[in-house]
């Protein structure tokens, strides 16, 4: 397709919130039908830019906004919709109690003739949008009954009903498995081929490089540059996003002399994992990788006592244990950092201090009551130990960045004095820059003698931070890799095979 002008063109976009400049004169351009990636760390201004384009925020004077070559004096959400600019938000913003058809056709439903709804037209529009995506779904089904990947498709179909010409996708693959992600990528390609431009926002650089034509990188509210994807590598993008260079090196070493802390023998939970056996030694970091749904989290929850195995045994320092609940596991010195930090790991409105002592309340008691002296002692110890950047310990934890929240979540478990620490996807929602800091902590803890199980669906994370890497497939241990004798490419190609 040859078009003389870009579909969307922004110049000199400045936005200030309470004295803080969120965007410092950014320009951005999307060509018709291209797949464009907007990359940058959390807080770099990506969301602000999307909100300027969709008319939620007004840029300061001097900004220039052109759509289809025509200048737009003042963008509003309604105008953006009528121009065909659609956003698929990370949380999808769908309506769980409504049917698939009602969700997809929601724009028609709220713009009905005489204020009335035409259910037939709505269903027809839904079917048409789904057909365009090449998907068949029962449109009468309630949305809340669909798995997350299908909800994603509903959200995309909803955007298409509004005659979309430019679709923004905010972290669309965050909760998808690899095969679902592949499917989504296929859909994005189809959209692009049919002339719809897609702006893709994602933390996962591998898929960004796979899908995009061009990348716009933002850092600290400023434009770093616009780059063609050809010839781009993940480490180069990371460098552009953070302004720093991360050298990765394998840290694996032998721990054969150290005592075994945890022994797992033929552990099985029907339909989840089977015949899992391994030893974990003092100071060792065991990496477990595999696709979402391989049974990693289920295994971790079983080791943590939240689920009971159907057969097999768990030995802790040579003693057979059988945890009735995670309270038993915590008492025995097993800590589990859950994969969903935002909703399961931390109590967002509560203070940093309260979150930090949440798992170790019995250690700060004095005469049966919480001692504020002991509490502040524990809090200040771990905050300095893990280098958490905070204002005061009484600030709500939600005021912290993802990386700092994760440090507090780790500190919460270290405060119980664990023997084994299970980290389940510890870098989800943590910026590339802050990830390195988290892994520095993990290495330090291992050196101090903690036995660590590191679970991640990103092979490089376990490859560079574990002594051994176990590849899990459909609930079984497929193979064990020694990072010193295996290349990362080899590991990645088996995991994604």
């Amino acid at each position, binding site marked *: 397709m040859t078009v003389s002008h870009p579909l969307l063109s922004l110049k000199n976009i400045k936005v200030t919130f309470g004295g803080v400049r969120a965007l410092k004169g950014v320009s951005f351009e999307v060509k018709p039908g291209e797949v464009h990636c907007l990359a940058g760390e959390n807080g770099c201004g990506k969301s602000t830019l999307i909100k300027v384009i969709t008319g939620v925020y007004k840029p300061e004077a001097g900004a220039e906004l052109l759509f289809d070559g025509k200048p737009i004096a003042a963008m509003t*959400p309604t105008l953006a*919709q009528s121009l065909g600019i659609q956003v698929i938000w990370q949380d999808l913003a*769908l309506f769980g109690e409504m049917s698939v058809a009602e969700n997809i056709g929601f724009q028609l439903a*709220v*713009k*009905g003739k005489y*204020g*009335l709804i035409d259910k037939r037209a709505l269903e027809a529009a839904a079917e048409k949008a789904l057909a365009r995506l090449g998907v068949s779904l029962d449109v009468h089904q309630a949305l809340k009954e669909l798995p997350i990947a299908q909800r994603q498709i509903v959200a995309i179909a909803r955007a298409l009903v509004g005659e979309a010409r430019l679709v923004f996708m905010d972290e669309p693959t965050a909760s998808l498995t690899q095969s679902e992600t592949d499917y989504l990528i296929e859909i994005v390609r189809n959209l692009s081929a049919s002339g719809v431009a897609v702006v893709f926002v994602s933390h996962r650089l591998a898929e960004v490089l796979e899908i995009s034509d061009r990348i716009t990188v933002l850092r600290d509210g400023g434009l770093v540059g616009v780059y063609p994807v050809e010839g781009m590598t993940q480490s180069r993008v990371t460098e552009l996003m953070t302004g720093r260079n991360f050298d990765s090196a394998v840290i694996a070493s032998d721990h054969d002399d150290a005592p075994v802390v945890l022994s797992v023998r033929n552990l099985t939970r029907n339909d989840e994992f089977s015949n899992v056996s391994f030893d974990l030694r003092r100071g060792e970091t065991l990496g477990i990788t595999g696709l979402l749904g391989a049974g990693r*989290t289920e295994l971790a929850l079983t080791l943590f006592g939240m689920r009971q195995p159907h057969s097999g045994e768990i030995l802790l320092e040579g003693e057979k244990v059988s945890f009735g609940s995670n309270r038993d596991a915590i008492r025995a010195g097993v800590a589990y950092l859950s994969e969903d930090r935002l909703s399961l790991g931390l109590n967002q409105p509560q203070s940093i201090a309260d979150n930090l002592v949440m798992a170790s309340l019995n250690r700060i008691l004095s005469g049966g009551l919480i001692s504020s002296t002991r509490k502040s002692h524990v809090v200040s110890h771990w905050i300095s130990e893990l280098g958490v950047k905070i204002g005061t310990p009484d600030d709500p934890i939600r005021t912290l960045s993802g990386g700092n929240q994760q440090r507090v979540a780790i500190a919460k478990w270290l405060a119980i004095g664990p023997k084994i620490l299970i980290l389940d996807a510890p870098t989800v929602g943590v910026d590339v820059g802050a990830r390195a800091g988290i892994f520095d902590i993990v290495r330090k803890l291992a050196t101090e003698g903690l036995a660590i199980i590191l679970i991640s669906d990103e092979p490089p994370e376990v490859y560079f931070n574990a002594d051994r890497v176990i590849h899990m497939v459909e609930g079984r241990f497929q193979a064990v890799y020694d990072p010193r004798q295996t290349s990362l490419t080899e590991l990645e190609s088996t995991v994604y095979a």
Partner: protein
Amino acid sequence: MRRLVLGHSTETTLIAGMVLLCVGLSFGTDRFLTVANAFDVLNISAVNIIFAVGLLVVLISGGIDISFAVAASVAQYLTVLALGALGGGNWAEGFLIAGVVGTGLGLINAFLIYRLQIISIVATISTFNIFFGLLMFFTKGVSIYNLPDWLSNRVVFYEQEMADGSWVELTLPVVVMILCCVATSFMISRTTTGRKLYAFGDNPEGARRFGINIGAMHYISFGWLGLMAGIAGLMQAHYAQEVVPNALYGRELDVLAATVLGGARLGGGKGSVLGCVLGVLLVSITQNGLNLMGVSPFAFKMIVGAIILAAITLSSARLDKLLPEALKSSSRKGSQRS
């Protein structure tokens, strides 16, 4: 048909439960299963159903209201006083005044919740106390027994003597109740406003991003409940042939329980008029049956409470919801695109 049943599982369960209850009661007492008794239950339930469909709209939009029953008391008292000042009045004026007062009180709730950002349960507990306190203060608790004749005379649309000598009567409150149900049902399921109310209750942030006017949603839902409360207040005065300031006090919880029993979700986004009607009727039938069986009225509340609990457990909380969260996440994660 299968889809109809699956899509309305709460309603289907309620109907099944009601049939079972009726069968049981008809064996327990021979006076239960008569046409006259069925109409009795309908006449008795009419006021609560009008309340319930109003409350339904607020629940769908994600709010809750505790004050509507005392608001109805305020509306009926002010209406009767105003009619007296007008020199008697008529049905049209009665409905107009009660409706306007009720709507006004509902809009006050909406103002507190939307403008002052007070959580709806707190705001309406406050207005519940304020409305009731003002009513008791100004009336000194004095009832009005001297209603205009047109208001206290029973209006019968249809009557027939049955073979056993009892009378079947279709009275004004039932007709008004049916109109309120039809209007509410039309509003929530056929109009764009109704769709927006469901959407707003379901996912407020999603609705906001769609450009839905959030303020309007509050004023419409609480205003609608206020209107229904005003009408219900007038119907209750007509039915009781008197205005007693504290007659409706406490009714809010009965109606709330019956509405939730009918499948309305306290979190918003779900509920139907049919469900509301069935919920109120189930409670009424239980009370009616117990009455006919000669059970002590002191035991009523206890039994009704137990039945509501059992029905809600069976209808809204499906068995898988009773399982621990950890067990369910695995099946969700394991599920693949089909």
